């Protein structure tokens, strides 16, 4: 009984202590949750409409989609003007609709009447993305995660994508912003077969740049997909990518417009392929025809002409083309009597090096090649091309269509290649 009495006293004490804890609980906030939410909404509304020249929105419809930049001005009367120029709005355009800040379990920015530049990403009838009924499946309601005078961090309400909204410079023209975006976009034109990502001296190949989703071959079975967004200054990956112990996400366009640097020292950079890499990569879809040549090589080609004339043929074109496993020098000839054309192929292995490209003659295996190689001038031609060449682009680093190849052992032997379809 005595033992029980102690127990009762102890329990009573505990109850008193616990109940006293409840009584001393302090309110952490001076206002109710509803009041704080209303205040946050009003503050966000004021901040958004305070930017006279609007905001840049870096918008990703879904986590697997490429990003799109939009310029948005939030009018305090409730109208949002949105400018766009991208794959789904090909011509620069400003469209309008209403915007609002609503309470939806937190402050939410919504564009609640149709605004073509934004809602095209959500429209199930847009014809883009996954087709009728789904479209690009993007959001038009955004949860406000952080807000300041210069930047908002948003999250798409349905898809959960991370979206940045930052103040657009006061004096900059909207249209000129998209011109700057275009300059960066030049690095992702469909003619560029791939780009190199170099991090701390280690290189990986980035393919698919024109779709704004890089594919990176990794040691695993599946390539990694990295959606990115093109801005006026460079690009930003949707998510950070880690390689060689370095995490990279944002790259700025270099002054010459030919590469993207993650930092001033270019420890991480994205670069165009070298002309020799470009030559090899584009052989799969294009031909490279021998155009002008040095006097030394011209003499050899003249012998080829003479050899063909002797058998009533004339030379139509000399070009390099890809034959899946090796590169062929294709010699297209035409009969002067019948006008019928024929092709002889001579195979080379090609190997891009840091400075140029190595051609190694492997022989011929087709009938046309077998006939032609016996004619005068051909063995000299095949031998002259069996060499190492320094290679340069003549017209463009972004989309080279004219290349010069100069024999590294004999600089008097050079020729020009022009891209043909």
């Amino acid at each position, binding site marked *: 009984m005595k033992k029980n009495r102690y127990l009762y006293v102890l329990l009573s004490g505990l109850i008193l202590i616990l109940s006293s804890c409840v009584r001393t609980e302090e309110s952490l906030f001076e206002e109710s949750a509803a009041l704080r939410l209303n205040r946050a909404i009003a503050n966000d509304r004021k901040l958004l409409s305070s930017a006279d020249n609007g905001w840049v929105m870096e918008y990703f419809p879904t986590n697997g989609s490429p990003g799109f930049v939009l310029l948005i001005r939030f*009018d*305090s*009367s*409730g*109208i949002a003007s949105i400018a766009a120029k991208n794959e789904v709005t090909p011509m620069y355009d400003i469209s309008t*609709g*209403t915007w*609002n800040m*609503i309470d*939806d379990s937190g402050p939410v920015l*919504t*564009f*609640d*009447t*149709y605004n073509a530049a934004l*809602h095209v990403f*959500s*429209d*199930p*009838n847009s014809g883009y993305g996954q*087709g*009728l*009924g*789904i*479209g690009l*499946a993007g959001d*038009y*309601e955004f949860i406000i995660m952080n807000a300041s005078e210069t930047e908002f961090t948003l999250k798409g*309400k*349905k898809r959960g994508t991370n979206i940045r909204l930052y103040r657009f410079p006061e004096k900059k023209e909207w249209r000129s912003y998209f011109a700057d975006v275009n300059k960066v976009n030049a690095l992702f034109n469909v003619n560029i077969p791939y780009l190199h990502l170099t991090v701390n001296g280690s290189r990986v190949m980035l393919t698919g740049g024109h779709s704004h989703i890089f594919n990176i071959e990794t040691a695993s079975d599946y390539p990694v997909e990295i959606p990115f967004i093109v801005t006026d200054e460079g690009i930003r990956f949707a998510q950070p990518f880690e390689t060689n112990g370095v995490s990279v996400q944002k790259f700025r366009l270099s002054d010459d417009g030919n590469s993207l640097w993650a930092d001033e020292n270019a420890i991480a950079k994205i670069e165009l392929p070298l002309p020799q890499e470009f030559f090899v990569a584009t052989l799969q879809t294009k031909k490279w025809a021998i155009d002008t040549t040095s006097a030394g090589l011209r003499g050899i080609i003249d012998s080829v002409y003479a050899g063909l004339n002797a058998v009533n043929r004339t030379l139509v074109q000399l070009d390099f083309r890809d034959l899946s496993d090796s590169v062929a020098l294709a010699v297209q000839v035409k009969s002067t009597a019948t006008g019928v054309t024929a092709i002889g192929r001579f195979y080379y292995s090609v190997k891009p090096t840091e400075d140029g490209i190595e051609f190694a003659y492997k022989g011929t295996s087709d009938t046309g090649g077998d006939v032609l190689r016996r004619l005068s001038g051909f063995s000299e031609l095949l031998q002259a091309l069996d060499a190492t060449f320094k290679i340069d682009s003549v017209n463009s680093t972004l989309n080279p269509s004219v290349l010069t190849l100069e024999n590294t052992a004999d600089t008097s032997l050079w020729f020009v290649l022009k891209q043909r379809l």
Partner: protein
Amino acid sequence: MTSVILETLKKEYKLTNYEYSLMRKNSKIWLLIWTAALFSACVRFEDSFTDSIFVDEPELDPASELYPFDRWLEENYLKPYNLDFRYRMQDKGSDMDYNLVPAKLENSLEMAILVKHLWFEAYNDVAGPDFLKQHGPRIIHLIGSAAYKPALQTMVLGTAEAGIKITLYNCNELNPKNIDLLNEYYFETMHHEFAHILHQKKTYPKEFETFSAGYYDPSYWQERTDSEAASLGFASPYGSSQPREDFVEIIANYIVKDSVWWTDRLRMASQSGVNRDGQVVDDPLDGQEIIEAKIDMCRKWLKESWDLDLDSLRRNVTKRQLQIDSALIEGYKKIDEYKNEQL
């Protein structure tokens, strides 16, 4: 507990000692009486048309670009019908299963004017001004896109929820010049959904379900052609999905479709159906006779249950369809007049 309540009542209602002693004597009975009184007080608040049920709506801002339209909606929907005409979309107010976009602002203006002209005023003319005040929806929600079901290759044109809310989809395709599309996408849908509201309040005759019993198909109705559906006694393929859809499809189509359409539909119904592959599908039913019987039953039910003359409503809607242009001009003019309040 009872004594605490009685003490409170004494103070609150300043009861005399005699009254208080009577109550104490019969405390249980008095408690029952007071409880009943409290409940009856609640009943008195029900369905008042003088106060809006949308009490939390923010006040209209004269500085807003939308003020003239919002004021017009207030005067033409909120005050007379206690109805919130929602043209500004919120995902949480829509079906999250679909990918949807908001309606274009200019289309919302046109839709608001047309719904008033072709729908509310038609019922007002035929059934009197109180009919929709009492039975009409309390929310109309506009959605810009259709609600697609890609797997079924169908789209939802409208929905009615709990007799309160009608959602109209595909408003970004609105074209007031195309009466057929107006009816197909919106007004047939509105009559359809409103007929649901009416039969949810007063059930339709059970006999209706016997006309096409055994031919309803909730899963594959979308595979049926107009011809197949008509030959089975349905006004539309969707009507063949289930009896309640059949019932409202008969009413909605009867109101909005013209005599050319109905002549053709009844001709179809009198013949064997032809399926999507062009094959004739035989059935033992006389589709024309069934559809006519269904229309008669709907006509009778509307008259007896709702004192609503279906044929008068049809004639009124037909007449109003010819006045769309002038209704739009008048509507825009009225909306513009509210700009004066912004000055």
